């Protein structure tokens, strides 16, 4: 009979092969990154514009992005959607604070035609007032629904408090939807779409001719200098409670302004974060979900912005567990600051983190995402070699030191809603 109590041998990953995309620069100085070695018929083309919500009043950026397929002088929105759907295509519109990403998605045989339709729509959009109004009605309704959720309430209060001195904290309000001027959309589109293309990424097995067609489409835009951002990230830690009588759960957000991957402590702090709340076996999950049963889930992370980042802990707990949860979070942080993590736990976390990097680099699209996530910060793939090395080298002593440096309760803004 086999002894099932003994674990099979495992081996540690020491190196990951990263494959860089082809990089080419178009006549308009826009870079195009392409990963053409794929194993199926799927293709995704992303156009990244300097059209994030920081670059104007928030709502204008969001609406401009979402209206890109709303019709031009010679094509209605229905005609554009019909054409893209007819080719089995999908589009993606994602407007974040710093940029907007417009995607053309489909099978190889139709991707050039889909992308053509997408680019044509973006260039010729005329912001028809009827379309603007329909979008406003639908967005207003969606936002009203979202604002009912305690998780949304807590997240918004947390961000607007933490970034009260920069536009990152200036969030869209429901009444903003009543003050829209078509002129602002037209202006923003001209500046940030027609002249704001930053780069293009292509993942899919295109041949040279097809890739050239995509390049020609990209060449129809121009690339102005990116609007510089230079904000004040200072903040004062606060305690905020938003009351919602009928809520069954309380949403909690705890955190502080921190840094992004350009900071020398970022990699090693990621290990500290993982131990605390960054994976299913983390200390917060073990204590607050698996031991006490206060919540369905709790986690922590470091969100990265262009020039900085922030650390956050996030959960929704039964109403009666709010104070107990905050106490338990405090306890776990104090423990990290006063006792060295065991070699067993640290080794588990190291292996887990490196396994995750391997999984997140699986496939051409994933590899492109990894590339973009370093390129955006002016880094290259050598960052991941450094990442693996630093993760493997971190000691229990360093974990404790970093917890003392960056995880002090008095630096945290604490928000609860419920």
């Amino acid at each position, binding site marked *: 009979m086999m002894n099932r109590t003994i674990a099979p041998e495992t081996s540690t990953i020491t190196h990951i092969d990263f494959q860089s995309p082809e990089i080419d620069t178009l006549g308009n100085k826009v870079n195009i990154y392409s990963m053409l070695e794929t194993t199926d018929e799927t293709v995704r083309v992303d156009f990244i514009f300097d059209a994030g919500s920081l670059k104007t009043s928030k709502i204008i950026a969001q609406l401009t992005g979402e209206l890109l397929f709303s019709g031009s002088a010679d094509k209605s929105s*229905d005609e554009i*959607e019909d054409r893209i759907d007819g080719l089995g295509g999908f589009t993606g519109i994602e407007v974040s604070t710093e940029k907007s990403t417009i995607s053309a998605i489909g099978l190889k045989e139709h991707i050039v035609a889909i992308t053509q339709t997408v680019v044509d729509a973006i260039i010729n959009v005329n912001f028809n007032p009827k379309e603007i109004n329909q979008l406003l009605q639908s967005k207003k309704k969606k936002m009203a629904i979202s604002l009912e959720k305690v998780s949304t309430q807590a997240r918004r209060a947390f961000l607007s408090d933490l970034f009260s001195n920069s536009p990152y904290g200036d969030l869209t309000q429901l009444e903003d939807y009543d003050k829209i001027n078509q002129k602002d959309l037209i202006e923003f589109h001209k500046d940030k779409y027609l002249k704001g293309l930053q780069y293009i990424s292509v993942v899919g097995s295109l041949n040279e001719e097809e890739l050239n067609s995509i390049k020609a489409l990209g060449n129809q835009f121009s690339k102005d200098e990116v609007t510089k951002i230079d904000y004040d990230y200072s903040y004062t830690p606060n305690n905020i409670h938003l009351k919602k009588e009928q809520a069954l759960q309380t949403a909690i957000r705890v955190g502080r302004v921190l840094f992004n991957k350009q900071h020398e402590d970022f990699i090693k702090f990621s290990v500290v974060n993982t131990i605390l709340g960054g994976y299913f076996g983390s200390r917060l999950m073990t204590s607050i979900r698996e031991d006490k049963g206060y919540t369905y889930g709790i986690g922590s992370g470091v969100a990265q912005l262009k020039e900085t980042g922030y650390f956050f802990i996030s959960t929704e707990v039964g109403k009666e567990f709010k104070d107990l949860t905050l106490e338990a979070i405090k306890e776990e942080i104090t423990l990290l600051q006063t006792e060295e993590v065991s070699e067993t736990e640290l080794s588990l976390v190291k292996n887990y983190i490196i396994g995750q990097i391997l999984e997140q680099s699986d496939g051409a699209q994933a590899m492109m995402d990894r590339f973009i996530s370093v390129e955006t910060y002016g880094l290259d793939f050598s960052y991941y070699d450094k990442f693996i090395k630093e993760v493997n080298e971190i000691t229990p002593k360093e974990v404790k030191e970093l917890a003392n440096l960056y995880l002090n309760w008095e630096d945290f803004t604490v928000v609860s809603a419920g």
Partner: protein
Amino acid sequence: MVEFERFVLDNGLRVIFHKDVTTPMAVVNTLYDVGARDESPERTGFAHLFEHLMFGGSINIPNFDGPLQEAGGSNNAFTSNDITNYYDVVPVQNLETALWLESDRMLSLAFTEKSLEVQRSVVIEEFKQRYLNQPYGDLWLELRPLAYQVHPYRWATIGKNIEHIQEATMEEVKDFFNTHYHPGNAILCIAGNLELDEVKRLVEKWYGDIPSKEKKVRNLPQEPKQTEFRTKTIERDVPSDVYTYGFKMAGKGQEGYYEADLISDVLGRGKSSRLYKRLKKELELVTDINAYVMGSTDTGMLMISCHPSDGVTLEQIDTEIWKLIDEMQSTLVEEAELEKIINKVKTTKAFSEQGVLNKSIALAQSELMGDANLINTETESYEKVTVEGIQKHAEEILQKTNCTQLIIKAKKNDE
């Protein structure tokens, strides 16, 4: 084309192996042929609660997650009304760790009181977070018992109510395990850059000695044909109204399923669909509208759901939806429209098969439906659908007497 090999162990465990040379990861996907439909009406939510308990330690290994994370892997699981599915993703060189862990919990769980007690609370918090503390979160808790009167689809996977979870006992947990968790009731799918012989050797090593049990014959009360229009209005503390229509249709794999799926696409998938163009763009009666199918194994539903614009009445929306339905029944869909829908199905299919994990889950589900190769023939089944077939099934399904309507009204707050 997703290639695969199939073998069966003496204890009845069905194994699918998919070789994928492009990935450094391996997947171990375990599908158990048990879902919320197999629960007793007095103990609903049990299959899902049980999924949580599967992470509370097995007979020989006190902790499931730790060793897997130590091996650089991660895992998760989901429960539906039809199945319970567990998956592990590990660097391929550490495949054996996942097999060791998964096989031990198929052999037996630790069944600790502590684990049961804590997971009961966790699931109750999940109930609150996902169903009770979200706007419209209880929509399916209300719609299911209205649409299904006999079949166990009348309750949601989370359960009918919190009490059912609170009252679950250790005895019931053990019974549930013994009935549903054994090699003959599972499909194991292994995928990665591996060789068949090696996979066979490892599966035999870890699963070969798990005793076989008799597979319980499923004998569920099937939902009789609906013969009357059902409608219910509820008031909730939400910002705006939501109207939902559910039409009974074939289960996945049954005659008429593919037609019904395409009918839902014609009606309400995306911005070029008929409902979207007519009710939202042209008439501005709704701020959002869509249609889809549930995709369940037994009698399912084709759903239409919309957010009415301010000031629009239910009657206005009803009139237009039924008018549009009438058009689908009286006039053939044009070939070009059908081709458009099929093109979207093909694109969706190609993207859904990206990545070794998605393929593994789809292979296991296809095998449960009778043949893992269904993953490769599904597109063909959609392509075989004709415009006449669409019309015929639209006539059958989109009848008022086959419709269940749930109206969620926003409570008027006196401010």
